[in-house]
């Protein structure tokens, strides 16, 4: 089971500060959506609205056709994993007991799978949750997020504190379990380069607004690099959106956003320019760089 989401002109205001500014988007059911944005872009605010932790100040939000706010059906089927290190300091229950109890709150919770994950993440079942290290606390939360198999599963920078091998296990489990039990997953991150392959679709936000949305492939195909002699590159990129450029002697390399038509591709080839692909990481870094540069 998995839920589709539709947001129409959703806004969230903190006093004078507009954290989310009239955003509209649709998230397809059963896909892994990468939510990308820089620090303070509004990722967590947006996710807390999606998970019904707070109400939007304006606009409408529907999840599986209903308004999620104070909606018992949708809320029970939504799990929001975010940084709860502080709360977990006061969790004196043991890991094993906590996982057992989850079944009371989450209808799809699979305890056997949770215990498999405990082994993979090497968590001690008999240790109290507050005594776990930072990375292990995050792994504990990731286990709850995965094993709950909620139709809407949200991981908000859930990898914080995990070391690289642990993150790798986490990513692998997302893909494996998603294949067998499809749900709608939203995964927010700024570690784009190591997680980009997980995403079916990408939603990039910047300063509280949607910067772009599309399938991973669509988004990536909008960007490309061009390398060649300085004059040729400059002539070719006139009128195009250049995100970044580097010059080395007489050679120039630029990153361009906005796709390339077949004719342009042929023209670039004839001009002796080398065309390359950009990664989601390149696009993220250069599309969201702001006034500071």
């Amino acid at each position, binding site marked *: 089971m998995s839920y589709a989401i539709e947001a129409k002109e959703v806004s969230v205001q903190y006093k004078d500060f507009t954290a989310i500014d009239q955003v509209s988007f649709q998230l397809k059911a059963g896909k892994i959506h990468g939510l990308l944005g820089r620090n303070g872009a509004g990722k967590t605010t947006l996710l807390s609205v999606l998970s019904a932790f707070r109400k939007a100040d304006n606009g409408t939000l529907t999840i599986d056709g209903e308004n999620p706010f104070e909606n018992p059906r949708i809320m029970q089927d939504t799990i929001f994993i975010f940084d709860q290190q502080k709360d977990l300091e006061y969790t004196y229950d043991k890991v094993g007991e906590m996982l057992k109890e989850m079944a009371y709150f989450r209808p799809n919770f699979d305890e056997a799978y949770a215990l498999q994950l405990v082994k993979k993440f090497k968590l001690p079942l008999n240790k109290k949750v507050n005594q776990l290290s930072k990375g292990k606390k995050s792994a504990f939360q990731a286990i709850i997020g995965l094993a709950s198999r909620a139709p809407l599963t949200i991981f908000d920078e859930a990898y914080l504190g995990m070391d690289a091998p642990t993150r790798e296990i986490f990513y*692998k489990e997302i*893909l*494996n379990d998603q*294949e067998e039990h499809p749900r709608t997953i939203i995964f927010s991150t700024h570690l784009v*380069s190591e997680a*980009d*392959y*997980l*995403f*079916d679709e990408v939603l990039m936000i910047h300063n509280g607004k949607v910067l772009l949305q599309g*399938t*991973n*492939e669509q988004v990536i195909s909008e960007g490309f*690099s061009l390398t060649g002699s300085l004059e040729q590159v400059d002539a070719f990129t006139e009128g195009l959106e250049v995100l970044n450029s580097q010059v080395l002697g007489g050679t120039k390399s630029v990153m361009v956003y906005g796709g390339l038509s077949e004719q342009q591709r042929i023209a670039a080839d004839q001009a002796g320019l*080398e*065309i*390359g*692909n950009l*990664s*989601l*990481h390149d696009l993220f870094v250069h599309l969201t760089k702001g006034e500071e540069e």
Partner: protein
Amino acid sequence: MSTQFRSDKPIFIQVREQIEDQIVNNQLREGEQAPSTNQLVQFYKINHATISKGVTQLVDEGILYKKRGVGMFVAEGAKQKLVQKRKQAFMDDYIIGLVQEAEKLRITENEIIDLIKKARKGDKA
């Protein structure tokens, strides 16, 4: 993005070529099960849609075939088909560039043949 891919060629084509290579090299034999899309995603760290695009092409060309609920398999005659295709591409991919470069350097045909013989013996020219 994984470093094992070149940036000047669409990645789905490179994925597809890597699977083809495995078939041509006998690492994947006819009738054997090919890696699943999910395995390929995890191995190459490349997005699902991209992998599927490469795999779908191989299915369309009859190199791989799908068994419902079981997975993907290498078709009978797949290797032969691929070798045939690669032979046709050999001219474009290797010979034309070689001849052009040789002309620039004024290397004669006989010299080219000698060089090829040396390379086959494993000597460095």
